[in-house]
């Protein structure tokens, strides 16, 4: 393998809110074109970890590296670092006062210095690719949840990120809409997009991820190839977590 540093690297990251330790020293890395899935119960720290990597939360200790650069260093401009990453949220977080096209265009034209025309052309191209070409003039709440989340993915892709952070992007969707969103992520994986994916969808994690990390009480307790972690988990916590999902019919 090449000696290039991983695209994303998390080293000993800790984070607490008001005395509660949410992350207790997380280590993780995502190499180029790799997809890493974060699994774990609600409250295990998956969302917090993603928000810390995207510098939406300040970490207490440890480092986050992007292409070998420590972006959590106080000397680094967080805005510049965030421009290289893009996050998709559980609740979509589309801008309700902007049309679909303007949602996608806002960052490229305001934050990434693209010419409005060029940005609009590539935004339309992306929207069309993900079956949203007809909806560019609509406001987000005219769209189904699945469509909204696809717009949010397109909005993230339009900034041409080095890596995508996906925070339980199907958890707020009706079951019948989950498939269309996961399909988009599968396509992105096939194209080689580097991704860190927090998810409750184990089947999807098994298909898409190169590695699965099981997060439990702010630590990664177990990691490895999806087939191994999901089929033969070593840690009792992982076994218990997967048993519960199985009982709920989610595997």
């Amino acid at each position, binding site marked *: 393998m090449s000696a290039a540093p991983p695209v994303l690297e998390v080293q000993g990251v800790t984070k607490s809110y008001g005395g509660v330790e949410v992350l207790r020293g997380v280590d993780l890395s995502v190499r180029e074109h790799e997809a890493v899935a974060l699994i774990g119960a609600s409250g295990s720290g998956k969302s917090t970890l993603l928000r810390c990597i*995207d510098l939406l939360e300040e970490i207490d200790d440890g480092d986050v590296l992007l292409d070998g650069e420590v972006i959590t260093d106080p000397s680094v401009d967080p*805005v510049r670092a*965030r*421009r290289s990453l893009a996050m998709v949220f559980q609740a979509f*977080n589309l*801008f*309700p*006062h902007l049309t679909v096209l303007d949602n996608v265009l806002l*960052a490229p034209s*305001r934050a990434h210095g693209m010419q409005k025309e060029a940005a609009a052309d590539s935004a339309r191209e992306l929207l069309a690719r993900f079956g949203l070409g007809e909806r560019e003039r609509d406001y987000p709440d005219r769209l189904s949840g699945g469509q909204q989340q696809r717009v949010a993915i397109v909005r993230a892709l339009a900034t041409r990120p080095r890596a995508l952070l996906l925070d339980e992007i199907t958890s707020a969707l009706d079951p019948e809409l989950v498939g269309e969103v996961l399909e988009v992520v599968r396509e992105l994986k096939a194209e080689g997009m580097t991704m860190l994916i927090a998810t409750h969808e184990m089947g999807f994690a098994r298909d898409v991820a190169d590695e699965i990390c099981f997060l439990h009480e702010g630590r990664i307790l177990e990691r490895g190839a999806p087939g191994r972690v999901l089929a033969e988990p070593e840690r009792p916590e992982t076994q218990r977590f997967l048993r519960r999902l199985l009982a709920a019919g989610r595997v």
Partner: protein
Amino acid sequence: MLGALAALILTSKGWPNVRETFFDWNAFKDAFPDVLDGFWLDIKIFMVVEIAVLALGLVVALVRSSGAPALFPFRLLAASYTDVFRGLPVILVVYLIGFGIPALELSGVPSDPVVLGGVALALCYAAYVAEVYRAGIESIHPGQTSAALSLGLTSAQSTRHVVLPQAVRRVIPPLLNDFIALQKDVALVSILGPLEAFRVAHIEASSTFNYTPLLAAAVLYLAVTVPLTRVVDHVTARDRLLRSAGAPV
């Protein structure tokens, strides 16, 4: 109910007197042009002050809502400002600024009562409007800012393009209500002497011992405030309708 009230007033012993001193058609016709002249001054003061209020209120609200540690002293200043000016009667502020500032005899500071009265109104109303804006800003879900920042916008861009457009839309009805209150309170500037509608009417009333000119002023105020009130009702109703229909707000 209203009929009974009207009957009670019209049959009261003092009614003939009241009719003469408040509802004298000839006095109304005589006074109206002068009062109307004065009313244009009200309108002018209102418009200039309203623009100042919208701008100053926004600045104060942005300072108060900002989380930047460097802005802490300014946040404190903004908070004290809104506390003080919302806590004082407008008439008192008009007196203090209108008579206090000229008494200082500072060079370069305007002593025109219209300007000083306008400044007093602007200071009072901007404190209210700042709180209205702030309520709007804080009603926007933090996920909106997260999304904007994660896309690479600076926090100023996030405020400008994501938070403010949504916040302002939400507070248009309460802002319009403050418009109406301000439009009426412009009459307080009369204390300082400018010949605006209320003062003109008052002068005419005292020189003729007939209060009908005040009624002329009242009609003019209503001619502006009633349509404004209807606009507020309309906007509020439309807002509620859109919100329940799930359209963008």
